[in-house]
């Protein structure tokens, strides 16, 4: 839970409300606290249930299922496959989106609504239709035959993660007023590339990190696209083995996501020590 502060700051552009946070004591109404407790229970009870199921035989704690799960050669392979997709998609997404969002913010503010619209499309185009469409165009019967190429799935994942990646980066861009920062750098003689790499990127580093983390964890857990395209990624493997070896599957799920969360936490802590993160945390 320690990472929550940083994770929260990543995802959203902090606004003036926070500046007065320290002053806003007041009496917390009891029922709003209750809502919070309920929602936490709501999310953690399933996790705890899964944990109980995975690590106990009735009343005794055991790592037996986990060991069995880990020795399954398919398990490791599927985790690596998922990780590969996650890393490549994350890199592609950040490298494409960060400069585009910057340029739209800076030079083409009129295109913002278009970009806002394009980046919520993945929410309104459900994964299943995306898959069908991708298969149609790039599949066996399609115009470009990319069947079997992982590019097709990376493309789908890029579309899937575009909303968070764009949103996280764009929020960071707007929080620092890139427009004026760019003009300040230009007035000091800096060209566009230096301005972007030396001034803008460091200023939005927490946003970029946040985007990368969200993209990575999302893809690590994605089921629909991988399943429909026939890749045995980790979630697909879990679903396939759940019926036959449900406790092993559950233990694997918990362990793998614990590892993911720990790396998220570590990165968040690193980000927190950077001046930009501190600036976002205190100045806004």
């Amino acid at each position: 839970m320690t990472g929550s502060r940083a994770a929260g700051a990543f995802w959203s552009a902090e606004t003036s409300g926070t500046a007065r946070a320290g002053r806003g004591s007041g009496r917390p109404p009891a029922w709003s606290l209750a809502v919070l407790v309920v929602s936490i229970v709501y999310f953690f009870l399933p996790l705890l249930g899964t944990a109980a199921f995975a690590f106990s035989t009735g009343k005794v704690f055991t790592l037996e299922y986990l060991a069995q799960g880990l020795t399954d050669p398919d398990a490791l392979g599927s985790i690596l496959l998922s990780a590969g997709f996650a890393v490549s998609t994350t890199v592609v997404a950040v490298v494409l989106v960060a400069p585009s969002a910057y340029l739209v913010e800076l030079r083409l503010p009129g295109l913002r609504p278009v970009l806002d619209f394009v980046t919520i499309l993945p929410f309104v185009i459900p994964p299943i239709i995306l898959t069908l469409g991708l298969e149609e165009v790039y599949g066996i019967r399609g115009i470009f035959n990319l069947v079997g190429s992982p590019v097709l799935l990376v493309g789908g994942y890029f579309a899937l993660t575009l909303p968070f990646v764009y949103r996280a980066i764009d929020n960071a861009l707007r929080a620092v007023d890139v427009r004026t920062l760019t003009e300040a750098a230009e007035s000091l003689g800096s060209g566009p590339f230096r301005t972007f790499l030396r001034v803008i990127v460091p200023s939005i580093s927490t946003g970029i990190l946040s985007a990368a983390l969200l993209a990575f964890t999302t893809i690590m857990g994605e089921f629909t696209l991988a399943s429909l395209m026939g890749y045995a990624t980790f979630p697909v493997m879990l679903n396939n083995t759940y019926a036959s070896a449900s406790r092993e599957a559950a233990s694997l799920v918990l362990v793998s996501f614990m590892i993911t969360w720990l790396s998220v936490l570590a990165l968040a802590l690193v980000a927190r020590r950077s001046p930009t993160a501190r600036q976002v945390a205190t100045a806004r």
Partner: protein
Amino acid sequence: MARLELHGISKRFGDQVAVAGFDLSVEDGELVTFLGPSGCGKTTTLRITAGFETPDTGSVVVDGSEVTGLPPNRRGMGMVFQGYALFPNMTARDNVEFGLAVRRRPPAERRRRVDELLGLFHLEHVAGHYPHQMSGGQQQRVALARAIAVEPSVLLLDEPLSAVDAKVREELRTEIRRMQGQLGITTILVTHDQAEALSISDRVVVMNSGVIEEVGTPARIYAEPRSAFTAGFIGAMNELPVRVASRREGLVERAGRRFAAPGATELPDGAAALLLVRPESLEPIEAAAAASEERPVLRGRVDVQTFLGATMRLFLGGVVWGAAAEGDHEIEQLAVDVPSSAAGRWPVGTELSVAIPVGSSRVIAARTAAEAAAVTRRPGSART
């Protein structure tokens, strides 16, 4: 360290005219202020000068060579932004050094130059601080040091003091003026604050609705505004409706009395005009004293006393012309400045007569309806 010329600059944003036919020459080492209400085009003109906007027509010339087509990073100008625009991920020192690093100056020279600037602006003790760790005034001075570090040909200041507290603002104002004088940098400052413009400038450019109303030294613009707009915008000014009685003799007429007023010779006989008098020019007199052609008199009741420090401003209501009761032309409000020490003689509710001394007033043509709308929201006779 350069002479700046702006020739026929015009710019529209969609339907809206931001600047129209702006012409100005700024001498080497001069500090010129663009003054006007929000939306008057002053910031657009500054941004065109810096290269952040492209003018629809006109050219920007520095030391005889045109820079209109150059991008901002090749104009060699320094700019200080309204919200400072310090780089949040860099310390004060790194911010100041940025422009020198861009120019690939050797590290030793950079260090020396940055130290010198941090010293000049009394920033040594915050050299290692990030922007969010500094006060508004400190950030402002880092922004100035950063802009000056690269020895710009022209320094552009976009409302540099609007984000700091009133007290710090006055201090920084003096500091900017002193620094600019010492270094002799040609400077343009944009502001909506007339006190700031008057106190800091060699010349003031008064702007309204995208055009230059007038250009002049602070003293000239304050003492002899040439337009009703300037008169209303700069300093407190009483505007008293009169009519030109005799152009030849330089006389105006109001409430059946005629009196001399500078400027009347430039307006046609019978023209509606405004008599402009500063609150500090009005002289309290004994109620019995007679008005004369040289010295018209007004009388009213003290409604409000406003303490300004050295002086007290009295707002008179129900003001009539003439020392006696014969005047029937009421003036809604008249501001009169008296020394604070003497203000006790006219508490709220008492009657006060004031004279307009010879030579301290000025007549201009009555403003048009459009001009009136630009500066005032209701037809009043005195502006404070």
